């Protein structure tokens, strides 16, 4: 605003916005209000509520009773299943997330060529992602069925070996879940595909002129150029994998011998089966803290390998 404008006029302008601006503000509030109301009721209230409940003994039936940090102390010092579920979950995360990224990227590279029917292929690879998790679990129950399941049958037909009891063996159940996680690889694959198509051709042409091999082009051109997407998929994958629940709930209930007792399954059991909502709330906040810490760590070290085009 021009400093020469009289003060009274400046005040009037700041106090009384135009009719158009007021109308826009009104409609902004009207249109955003469903989201705000939904956020307050279905997100903020439960978040604040669970933070409070995590400091209480609360069985849902009786009023919560304040116990301070007792739930956190109990989980860290006396609840063996808490540590077991953490170990199971983060073993799964450590293997499934990088594998997920690698397979998604490999598929995206394969699908980033121009051949007839490529669009159909891309759609086919993406389709499993939109299947409900429970339906996916039921499907994989049949695939993993010992002896007569598709996977064991294929192993027997192709290599003449008797496949393991995927979901009934404490040694194989986690690899089975990791294998199954690849079912949802279509989501990150589509993002990688979009990123790959955004890499300028000139960079590859320049690299080829310099005599770079296909691997070196991938290593020094493709990967840096799509590194923001790798970071994004890594973080989203980490959050999703650490919250695995529905498939384990349907397929194994955490067994055998707690070998697939994922963190969220333990949390669910505490909340809805064992009537320990306070303990479950504390677990939820601990998981949030762990995932947040891991995310911050990834961000901290991402500066070393993520390339943003606008960087100098």
């Amino acid at each position, binding site marked *: 605003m021009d400093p020469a404008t009289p003060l009274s006029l400046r005040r009037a302008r700041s106090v009384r916005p135009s009719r158009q601006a007021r109308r826009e503000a009104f409609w902004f509030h009207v249109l955003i209000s469903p989201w705000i109301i939904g956020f307050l009721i279905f997100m903020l209230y439960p978040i604040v509520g669970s933070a409070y409940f995590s400091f209480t003994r*609360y069985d849902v*039936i009786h009023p919560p009773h304040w116990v301070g940090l007792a739930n956190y102390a109990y989980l860290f010092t006396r609840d063996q299943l808490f540590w077991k579920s953490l170990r199971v979950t983060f073993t799964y995360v450590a293997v499934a997330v990088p594998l997920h990224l690698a397979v998604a990227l490999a598929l995206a590279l394969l699908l980033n060529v121009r051949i007839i029917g490529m669009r159909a292929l891309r759609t086919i690879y993406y389709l499993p992602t939109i299947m409900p998790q429970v339906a996916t679990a039921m499907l994989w129950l049949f695939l993993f069925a010992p*002896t*007569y399941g598709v996977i064991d049958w294929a192993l027997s037909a192709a290599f003449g070996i008797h496949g393991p009891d995927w979901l009934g063996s404490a040694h194989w159940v986690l690899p089975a879940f990791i294998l199954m996680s690849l079912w949802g690889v279509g989501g990150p694959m589509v993002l990688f595909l979009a990123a790959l198509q955004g890499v300028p051709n000139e960079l590859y042409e320049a690299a080829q002129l310099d005599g770079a091999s296909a691997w070196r082009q991938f290593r020094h051109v493709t990967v840096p150029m799509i590194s923001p997407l790798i970071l994004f998929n890594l973080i989203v994958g980490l959050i999703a994998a650490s919250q695995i629940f529905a498939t384990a709930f349907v397929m194994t209930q955490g067994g*055998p*011998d707690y070998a697939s007792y994922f963190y969220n399954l333990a949390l669910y059991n505490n909340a809805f089966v064992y009537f320990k909502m306070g303990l479950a709330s504390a677990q939820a906040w601990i998981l949030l803290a762990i995932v947040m810490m891991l995310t911050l760590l990834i961000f901290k070290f991402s500066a070393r390998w993520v390339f943003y085009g606008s960087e100098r």
Partner: protein
Amino acid sequence: MKYRRILAGATAACLLLSGCAAGGANAGGGAGTKRITWLVRSDLGAGSAAWAKQTAAAFARSHPGTHVTIVSAPVAQYNEKFLTMYAAGTPPDVVGTYAMGFGTFYAKHMLADITPQLHALNIHLSKYFHKSVVDTMMRNGKIYGLPFSDPPMVVLYNRTLFQKAGLTYPPTSWTDRSWTIGQMLRDAKRLSHSGSTPAQSVYGLIMGPGQLGYTAWLWGADMFSPSGPTHARPYRTGLPDQPHVDSGQFLAAMTWLADLITKWHVSPTADEATALGVLGNPILSGRVGMEDTLITGLHVFSGAHPSFRWGIAPVPYGPGGDLSPTGVSGWAVAAKSPHPRTAAAFVAYLTVGPAAASYAKIGGYVPSNRVDLSIYLHRLAALPGNGQTYAQDAQVVGGGILASDGYIFPAKVFSGGPHWSSEFVNGTANVWNGKESPRKALTDLQHSLDVLLHQERAAGG
């Protein structure tokens, strides 16, 4: 100011509309209508859902001024639904005890004492139920629910395989002491033979440890008492006590069960059993001689066309007797129900009234109500492949209800039963794979259960 007025007006309109919506929901039965909510399972098939709908409507017709609202949830989410409704201050008035179990609900004071209402309704329970079955839903002389279903454990066997092996069929009388676990094992050995591929093998017997290892009752042992369930305090109080899974009898029972798989090879390993059961009950494969099962398991035959004849027999005698549990489920009134009298009348309608009889006609559940038992037995006799007479079935089913003596699935009796059950299932999982000895598994399990008991007694959360 104008916009504030508009926003205030919009808010008021929203509140008004939501108020109307609530009023609309309540207005279903008109002013002064007593509305009760009934939480039912949604995973029991279309017949069961239709029965629930008809029952609610019929009750409202026969009790003017009442309206029954059905809320449904599958068994896996039944507890979750009950808990969330409870937490929201709107618990269902009438709830089933089949999911979490009576013990936990009672221990959490979630159920109402309906003794006065039942007295007012002038219902003579002895006319309908065995005393031991009603006792499962009583504490300190007060009735907290009425039994609805009472399926006993039986041995389901493949008569065609028995005939081929030249074996005599097991008896149908629970007092026939010639039917022992030794005889069962001998039969299983004769029935079993391994083929060149797993798909050609025949297994003589599938028998598991049961919930919290109740199969050990046949050895006179129980998880909470080395002298068996009749001496275990938790069955009277509903509160878990010092576990004894390392007792000699309990170990003998679990070793015998593990030997079926690893020593005598008459039972499939855990993965083979999973494979056999991939399309439902393993017995449907036609390659299993005998299987211990809750009698409700027989209803896999209702939609099947078995290529063999089958029959049912009592649970055999072990060194400690033939006590086996039933899977009693019942209907109860929630402690916070605003209409306990109407809700109790509905519970009576479901268990001793017309609804019980109509469910026996369509459902796979064995009615606790003795008056309706014959309806169920007629359905059982008509199941495809049943090679027994009505009288033989009646002897096994009726004898099983009496033989259970009011002992129901342990996880349903105890407060926190599902937690103990989960610990037991996971702690013994490697025994049935042959990857761990019963002694080692039970020693470790004893330690885990000691810790669990300690944790439960000083539980946080």
